[in-house]
């Protein structure tokens, strides 16, 4: 493999990391509060508001129903509005974020709903406001689940990022298609696949490690 190809692989890896990192971070910033709200606005919950919950749930489901490649193309005008251009790695972050937000919101919602209702009752009995309850009880208690959910979201984003080549997003997936497939360079395809496998493994291990670190639910073996 030529030095040129190695450079291209390196560059594509950095592009993928850039897209996944920024869209993952933005997806969390928007998805986390939406997920928390989805969990606490259900009927009979802390901030019970079934109508709003229903509408928000519909929007989330609608966004998640659209195949990612369609989403990328469909929102090109919006992408241009936000990023100033509809082509390139930075522009690709817009559809990736739009896809990540509802996905992360659902994962966070599930993690929050797993929190033992007895803890919510205990905090209410202490006179906690809804905001205190969310900040001091729900999020800390759901953190192991949220961490695993975010890990899953980042892994999915790595997969999605391969499709943004359609709008000139570049990155590993795009390199694999343009060189490995269209120019018949199987060694490039192989290299791309191997890098993706390693990336996903790293993200998964890191996420699971973090989740274990924040999970105090099971007694740990305290070696002395």
């Amino acid at each position, binding site marked *: 493999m030529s030095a040129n190809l190695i450079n291209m692989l390196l560059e594509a890896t950095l592009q993928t990391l850039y897209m996944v990192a920024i869209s993952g971070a933005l997806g969390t910033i928007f998805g986390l509060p939406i997920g928390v709200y989805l969990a606490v606005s259900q009927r009979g919950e802390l901030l019970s508001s079934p109508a709003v919950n229903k509408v928000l749930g519909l929007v989330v489901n609608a966004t998640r129903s659209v195949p990612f490649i369609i989403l990328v193309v469909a929102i090109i005008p919006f992408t241009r509005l936000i990023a100033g251009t509809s082509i390139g790695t930075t522009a690709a972050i817009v559809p990736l974020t739009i896809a990540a937000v509802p996905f992360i919101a659902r994962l966070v919602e599930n993690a929050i709903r797993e929190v*033992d209702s*007895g*803890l919510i*009752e*205990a*905090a*209410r*009995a*202490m*006179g*906690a*406001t809804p905001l*205190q309850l969310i900040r*001091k*009880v729900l999020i*800390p*208690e759901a*953190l192991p689940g949220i961490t695993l959910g975010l890990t899953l979201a980042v892994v999915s984003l790595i997969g999605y990022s391969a499709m943004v080549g359609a709008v000139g997003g570049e990155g590993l997936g795009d390199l694999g298609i343009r060189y490995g497939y269209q120019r018949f360079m199987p060694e490039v395809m192989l290299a791309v696949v191997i890098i993706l496998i390693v990336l996903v493994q790293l993200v998964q291990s890191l996420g699971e490690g973090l989740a274990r670190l*924040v999970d*105090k*639910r*099971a*007694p*740990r073996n*305290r070696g002395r």
Partner: protein
Amino acid sequence: MAEKQTTGAAISFAALGKSFEKKGSGQVMALEDVSLDVPAGTITGIIGRSGAGKSTLLRMVNGLEQPTTGSVTVAGHDVGRASAAELRHIRRDVGMIFQHFNLLSSRTVYGNVALPLEIAGVPSAEIKPRVDDLIARVGLEDLSRRYPAELSGGQKQRVGIARALATRPKVLLSDEATSALDPETTQTVLKLLADINRDLGLTILLITHEMAVVRDIASHVAVIDGGRIVEQGTTYDVFADPKHSTTRSFLSGITGVTLPSFIADRLQPERPQGAAQEVIRITFAGRHATDPMLAMLTSELGIAVNILAGAIEEIGPHPFGNLLVSVEAGRGAEARAYLERHELLTEVLGYVG
């Protein structure tokens, strides 16, 4: 030791009712016309079977449930009519402990005890000495950096108690706090509650399905059945002279005084023809509780007494006994009259031919 406040009611339930909407079956009455005063500074037990409504009753004290009719007053505040902000203030005056402890798994012992103080907006400089003090009071100094998952059940409930005391409440609610603990641990937790009641003059309202818990620490008791209070009074009076069948069945559970099966199987309600034995329950209470009444019955009236089962224990400072005996049926009335004259309670359970 702090002087106890024993005047007035800390918690007052007035003609309280609670109904739930239930799908298919319409309204379900969980509580009906409950009136009860919990005297300040006492430990009051509410005993009932599961589904009797005791848990709903307890949750109305801190507004976790709202009454449908009637009112609950805590330290002068009407809980049912309080605004959200007022309710949060009332809740800081009412600590609560739970059957399953409800500790945050993400926080250490220290962090759990500090939580109500953080919620109340106590400055962080004041939190640490207060939390250290509370953890010492429940005897967990060495474990303050441990997480709940690393503690035993009894230790977790001690954390729960320390947490409930953090905001210096006037009232402590206990929701089956010892039901998930083994008997030995139950005793240590009950002792801790009794100490807290004595040292801090705190009013404790506890619900339980175990009469032993009431016997061990409660000075007052209310028996709840089918959403109504069927009997209430001081623990001693209720134990000495239970009026309602639910109370009796709870009592027979703890005194361990039940008929041996070879008698129980042959027991009949009417006196049969011919020679028969009358089976009597004798409850020893009051000043004759420690007198050798059965020996006197034999020596003074010449009535022979068979002891079938019995136990004597203490409720607070008073001895309290329960005996099942049989005497010759023909002399049963005479024997009972003699015992009643000496302030013992008797009850005919049946006859054995």
